[in-house]
């Protein structure tokens, strides 16, 4: 396990370097350099900021030196300061991170549970009416533009039947609530965003669980279990389910960038105070350091998520760690 972990960590290094190179290239794509562009486009920049920035990014040095400089700053988690309020980017991102993690982790959890249930029941009753309906529903979720669905939900729940909150993470009187009420209040605000994220992501997982379950059910050890006289429930839950769920762990890891990436659209629509909305606000006000910071940190989150998924996979499947 230790050797597997070390090998896995070493493989991460080129990926991390690659991300920094791509981010760096995009920064330098801007005609005339982004400091200049920013000065022209943004009236909110304080006069000293340009000199400060030029020094920060060492724009007078050769490109490779600029890159190395920037890299060493990144390693110290120094993403520079926001153009808008001159606060360190890392602080701005960190205060938004919990809301994003809360929403995304809950959504992934819901997708995993519902996707597994739909996939397994679909595999057991293949081609039944139930299976067909579920396939159609999940496929529709996959094709519906999520931001439109969000608008429809807002129309329904904010205008026609005002039962669910459609904006923000908590109510106005949040500060006056007891601890238990606070949790309920946040959970209540999460219903719609989580529902919409999950509806779009279900097809992917449920289809995978289904085909993997169908495959496992046709294996000889399942037939052997039946022949031995094991009960069907036991076979399904003990032997088949475990083996067909293992690849899903990796799949969840792979779907992370999509879910985290999608968060900037959701968070903007639902006024969710997370990292995605921060990135959007930064984009609208040309706050380059914040944009770069959110992209880098979002990528770092994905790497971390994938690493955790791989570790979990290696823990449940011994074949991986001894390979």
């Amino acid at each position, binding site marked *: 396990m230790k050797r597997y972990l070390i090998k896995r960590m070493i493989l991460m290094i080129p990926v991390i370097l690659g991300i920094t190179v791509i981010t760096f290239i995009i920064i330098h794509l801007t005609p005339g350099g982004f400091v200049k562009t920013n000065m022209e486009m943004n009236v909110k920049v304080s006069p000293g900021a340009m000199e400060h920035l030029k020094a920060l990014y060492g724009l007078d040095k050769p490109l490779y030196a600029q890159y190395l400089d920037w890299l060493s700053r990144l390693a110290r988690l120094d993403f520079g300061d926001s153009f808008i309020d001159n606060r360190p980017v890392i602080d701005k991102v960190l205060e938004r991170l919990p809301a994003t993690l809360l929403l995304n982790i809950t959504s992934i959890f819901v997708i995993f549970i519902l996707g597994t249930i739909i996939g397994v029941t679909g595999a057991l009753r293949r081609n039944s009416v139930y299976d067909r309906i579920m396939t159609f529903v999940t496929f529709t979720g996959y*094709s519906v533009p999520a931001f*439109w669905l969000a608008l*429809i939900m807002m129309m329904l729940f904010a205008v026609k039947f005002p039962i669910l909150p459609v904006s923000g993470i908590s109510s106005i009187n949040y500060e006056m609530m007891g601890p238990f009420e606070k949790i309920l209040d946040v959970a209540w605000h999460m219903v719609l965003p989580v529902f919409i994220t999950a509806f779009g992501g279900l097809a992917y997982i449920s289809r995978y669980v289904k085909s993997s379950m169908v495959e496992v059910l046709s294996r000889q050890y399942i037939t052997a279990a039946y022949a031995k006289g094991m009960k069907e429930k036991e076979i399904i839950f003990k032997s088949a389910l475990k083996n067909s769920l293992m690849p899903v762990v990796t799949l969840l890891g792979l779907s992370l960038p*999509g879910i985290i990436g999608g968060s900037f659209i959701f968070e903007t629509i639902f006024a969710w105070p997370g990292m995605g909305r921060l990135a959007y606000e930064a984009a609208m006000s040309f706050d380059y350091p914040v944009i770069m910071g959110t*992209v880098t940190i*979002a990528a770092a989150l994905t790497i971390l998520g994938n690493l955790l998924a791989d570790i979990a996979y290696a823990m449940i499947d011994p074949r991986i760690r001894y390979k």
Partner: protein
Amino acid sequence: MNKMVLIGAIMAGLLVFTAVIAPALTKYDYRAQNLSERLLPPGARHIMGTDELGRDLFSRMVYGARVSMIVGVIAVLISTIIGLLIGSIAGYFGGIIDSTAMRLVDVMLTIPTLFLILMMVVFLGPSIINIMIIIGLTSWTDIARIIRAEVMSVKKTAYVDAARLIGLGRARIIIRHILPNIMGPVFVYMTFGISGAILTESGLSFLGLGVQPPYPSWGNILTAGKDYISTAWWLVLFPGIAIFMAVFSCNIMGEGLRDRFNPRIKD
């Protein structure tokens, strides 16, 4: 399963047809504002109603179809070309070229695509051309991986050996002999790619980061719909249904094609 391809093709065909004959279908200029006819519900004069500036929604939808579809198709062509190049070179040559290319794919898969797109839009500026290029540049990884795997397996066949033995060049072998045999999966990818690109474009345009007014796109029509959500349901409903139809038709075509080209994953 060809039924799915057929249904998808008919739906997509209808949308494309509407987009192509747009001028013949519309009574009003999609840019013509008429402030005395603001936010009219669907009726005899305007079958889909009017928007907040009194523009005919049906005209905007039909011209929006042009924009959304062109963006989708061109973006996918760009990503397919990049994917074909990187995938076939990596698969054919293997070794260090292959592992370098695959690390690049890993990197692209790790950065949340929408964040990357957001960053590029901010640095390059939002415009129809930039959106197509940006979506193309950020969505080639799937196809590169498919092509690479296919090339690796086709490379080992006898006819490729034969081509090599009669002294054909590498480029010629890849282009004339390997690629034509792996086009099936490429088509599957392209149909899914178009639906993905249309979704991304409409999402960006919805947030004001994609197609910019006065050009209509399904996404930026929805932006106005958001502001009038409690009064003008038609501004929300019609563009959303259009996006859904376009995406859904591409997706079921992709599903059908996938089953056809790869009977193994059929379930």
